[in-house]
């Protein structure tokens, strides 16, 4: 090569050699640097693709070898048995060790999820993904998630039992994190380019706030205030009644209240806060987030012992929401569903008792209009005097940018989420309203689960429930002494009737929350004569309960259907309860179609629309995947609700209103079919119920034809609904898409497009409990693990796995795959 250049002057030749010797290594270094970091949402490809540290390292196969791990965190050796579903069965010799092992094992399988969910609650997503999450983070911080978590962690630390469990759990998580090498980081850290940080007790509190955010943030106060302002009190009371037309409440009608109620605050005069025209895009509570639970008593069960079932419905996500575990100490042997980030079992059973939860949907979030002294916002008017505003500084870290500092003003009600001069999260946000939320209260919810995990009888269950704060749950219970019980339970503010149905006046002390319903007076029933207890988020009680919990609950159909089937059920077995969990009957369609279909003017329909009517007439109201009826009915009813109410209660950018419930709308068709509400006020011609039903049916069929083509197989419910279980970081490749499963909103099998039974459990009590369960996903949070989605098919087809309930670490069972000793 040298010889080729001998003709050239030596100086140029050397220059070129030096240039190459500088430029190429410089370029190579630059390339390596660029590959070593992430660019926006583009991951760092160098470390990501390297088989030594990248995603390849997350590929796992079934592990069957025993392990002995020295962690220096346990007080005595802990034996962990892993079964064929990768469920850990922890045998520890004391409380500390069992929670230490729970933290360690949960982190091993679910570290990224635990940290991400608590980061989200803490308003720290911008730290990971940059500015696009800034408004979300602001929202969570202004809601007071941190404020609430700090109070909760204090309550946890004040009780030695919850303190020990939270601290040991934290130590266990950190024992896993501290020995973790980058190559072993969960895949999501590699994709997003960050590293896990140490766990802290407050993260357990953040996890609780996260769940309260999911389950106890329903608020229609603003929409209802707008309705009231537009329609007046008489119409509002008529169209938005405090108790549904059809209802079958959780506490059976006729149950006697065995307590003397405390004094209930009087309804103040002019109880409704005078408001201007207001609008706020408050995230409305998703009605599909609900749950079922029930227990049949000895007289209805084949064995003479109670059987209990529970399926909590949440927005389905991956890694799976729940994590199964068995936790054993000399004083406890509990099995069930745990939540990554929380010590103990949340839904489960031990040798004596079983329990489960569904959401209550209590009105525990209210908004107060605040009057400031002046623009400095240093004082606000309350109880006829000026009171000081406190300030909380929120420092938000943003990936690749300087921190943002947000100052949130707090009154004794709570934080003022949006202030004048701040760029609001939504376009038209009312300024100066304080949010009063149950999540801001000091409560030690973990203690409830700590005590339930060890409960031996009904009295223990009642005692455990008395510590519970939020999110309020309907706790169903059954025990080996053949008791069954249910209680809508949580801390319920002591309110005057309808307090918080509308926006409240922050200057008037009569509008404040004035204490609490005494815990022992929360609605409850034990061994009702009908032989079963159940809940499906419907009204907690009938109208005889002396206190106000909320004016609206989830629609009654699911609960009603469950009660119909349980009433008829005899000689029940776990399989009878499993079948009920998979019930696909649409009670709403069964009630509504015989009323609506005769109104449809068939002569006005096209051939395809007529065909749709025929399908609806022949439909047996079942939401199986191959049916077209559910697709038609669901879309038609959506259009119908718009057709009846959009002209009267429009939802625009400047004013957000809401529609009356479907229950009230159906009642109108049955009892007031000539109501003026059927007329569209935006047209000159008078419309009747028949016009609205015919017109909206046409719209529904046409809209479906645009989505799916001509009426045919592509309209089938399973294809139309296309249930999706999305990865928490919204990565389709790591999600389960188009899962073919029946059910739907308002159906016992409550699987909608995005929500559904996140854990199904059936427990038959007896001398030896027999339990069954499944969730849509798997024990591992690692998409590269064979246990990431291994239970999905069992869940989809409505089957349950038998849960391995071991009595000792020496038990023999073919389902046992390996042992881990933690030292």
């Amino acid at each position: 090569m040298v010889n080729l250049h001998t003709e050239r002057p030596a100086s140029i030749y050397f220059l070129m050699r030096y240039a190459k010797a500088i430029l190429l290594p410089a370029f190579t270094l630059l390339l390596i640097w660029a590959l070593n970091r992430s660019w926006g949402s583009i991951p760092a490809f160098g470390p990501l693709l390297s088989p030594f540290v990248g995603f390849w390292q997350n590929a796992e196969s079934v592990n069957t070898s025993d392990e002995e791990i020295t962690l220096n965190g346990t007080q005595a050796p802990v034996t962990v048995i892993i079964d064929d579903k990768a469920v850990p069965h922890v045998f520890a010799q004391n409380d500390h060790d069992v929670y230490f092992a729970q933290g360690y094992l949960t982190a091993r399988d679910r570290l990224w999820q635990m940290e991400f969910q608590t980061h989200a609650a803490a308003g720290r997503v911008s730290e990971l993904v940059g500015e696009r999450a800034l408004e979300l983070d602001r929202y969570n911080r202004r809601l007071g998630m941190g404020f609430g978590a700090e109070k909760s962690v204090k309550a946890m630390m004040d009780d030695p039992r919850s303190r020990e469990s939270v601290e040991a759990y934290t130590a266990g998580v950190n024992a896993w994190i501290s020995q973790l090498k980058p190559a072993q980081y969960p895949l999501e850290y590699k994709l997003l380019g960050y590293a896990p940080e140490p766990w802290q007790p407050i993260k357990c509190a953040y996890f609780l706030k996260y769940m309260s955010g999911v389950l106890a943030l329903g608020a229609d106060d603003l929409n209802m205030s707008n309705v009231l302002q537009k329609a007046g009190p008489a119409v509002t009371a008529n169209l938005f009644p405090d108790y549904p037309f059809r209802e079958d409440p959780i506490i059976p009608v006729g149950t006697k209240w065995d307590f003397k109620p405390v004094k209930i605050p009087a309804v103040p005069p002019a109880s409704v806060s005078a408001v201007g025209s207001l609008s706020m895009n408050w995230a409305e509570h998703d009605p599909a987030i609900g749950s079922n639970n029930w227990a049949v008593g000895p007289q209805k069960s084949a064995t003479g012992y109670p059987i209990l079932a529970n399926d909590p419905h949440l927005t389905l996500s991956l890694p799976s929401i729940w994590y199964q575990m068995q936790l054993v100490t000399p004083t406890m042997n509990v099995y069930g569903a745990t939540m990554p980030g929380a010590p103990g079992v949340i839904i489960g059973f031990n040798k004596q008792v079983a329990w489960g939860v569904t959401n209550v949907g209590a009105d525990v979030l209210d908004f107060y209009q605040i009057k400031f002294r002046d623009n400095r916002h240093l004082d606000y008017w309350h109880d006829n005097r000026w009171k000081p505003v406190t300030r909380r500084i929120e420092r938000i870290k943003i990936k690749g940018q300087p921190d943002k500092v947000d100052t949130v003003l707090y009154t004794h009600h709570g934080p003022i989420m949006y202030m004048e001069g701040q760029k609001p999260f939504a376009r038209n946000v009312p300024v100066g309203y304080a949010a009063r939320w149950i999540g801001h209260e000091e409560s030690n919810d973990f203690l409830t689960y700590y005590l339930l995990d060890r409960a031996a009888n009904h009295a223990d269950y009642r005692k455990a429930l008395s510590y519970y704060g939020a999110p309020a749950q309907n706790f169903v219970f059954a025990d080996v002494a053949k008791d069954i019980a249910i209680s809508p339970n949580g801390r319920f503010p002591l309110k005057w009737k309808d307090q918080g149905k509308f926006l409240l006046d922050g200057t008037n002390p009569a509008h404040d929350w004035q204490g609490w319903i005494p815990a022992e007076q929360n609605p409850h029933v034990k061994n009702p004569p009908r032989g079963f207890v159940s809940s499906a988020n419907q009204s907690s009680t009938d109208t005889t309960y002396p206190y106000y919990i909320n004016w609206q609950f989830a629609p009654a159909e699911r609960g009603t259907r469950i009660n119909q089937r349980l009433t008829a059920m005899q000689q029940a077995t776990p399989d009878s309860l499993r079948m009920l969990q998979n019930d696909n009957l649409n009670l709403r369609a069964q009630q509504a179609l015989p009323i609506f279909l005769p109104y449809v003017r068939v002569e006005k329909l096209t051939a395809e629309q007529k065909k749709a009517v025929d399908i609806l007439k022949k439909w047996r109201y079942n939401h199986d995947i191959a049916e077209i009826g559910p697709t038609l009915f669901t879309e038609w009813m959506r259009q119908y609700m718009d057709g009846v109410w959009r002209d009267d209660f429009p939802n625009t950018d400047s004013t957000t209103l809401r529609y009356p419930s479907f229950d009230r709308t159906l009642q109108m068709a049955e009892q007031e079919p000539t109501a003026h509400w059927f007329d569209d006020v935006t047209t000159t011609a008078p419309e009747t119920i028949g016009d609205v039903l015919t017109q909206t049916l046409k719209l529904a069929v046409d809209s479906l034809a645009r989505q799916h083509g001509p009426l045919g197989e592509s309209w089938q419910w399973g294809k139309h609904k296309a249930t999706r279980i999305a990865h928490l970081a919204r990565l389709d490749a790591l999600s389960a898409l188009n899962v073919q499963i029946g059910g739907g909103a308002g159906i016992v099998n409550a699987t909608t497009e995005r929500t559904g039974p996140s854990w199904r459990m059936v427990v038959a009590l007896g001398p030896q409990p027999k339990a069954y369960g499944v969730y849509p996903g798997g024990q591992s949070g690692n998409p590269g693990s064979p246990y990431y989605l291994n239970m999905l098919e069992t869940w989809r087809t409505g089957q349950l796995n038998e849960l391995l309930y071991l009595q000792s670490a020496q038990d023999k069972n073919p389902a046992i795959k390996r042992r881990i000793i933690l030292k």
Partner: protein
Amino acid sequence: MIQLLLIAILGLLAQLILPWWSLALVAFLVCLWRSQSASQAFLYGFLGAALVWLGYALLIYLRTGGDFTGRMGELLFKVNNAALPMLATALLGGLVGGLSGLSGFFIRQAFGNQVASHAAGHTRP
């Protein structure tokens, strides 16, 4: 040939304890120590590194089943195919190794070899 083997073996060992870019360091040092031409340095660097990355990736793939590799194909390239992540891994490792090897050669040529080439110039009539 010795360079290729050295890059593969030392690269493998280095990456067991050092970050992924230690591969570049190995390819660079080996070619700095001994390389005959630019194309040869690039080729040995590329092949040595690609072999190690592809080989290890293939080993993991075969040991754990291909579902996850397919998912990663979907995630990174929107195609559920295990071959793509495999190819991308080999190419990326190869490119980094090749460029590092070439860098080693150029620096060797500019500095280390300069003495020899000067000596050769002086002996020429």
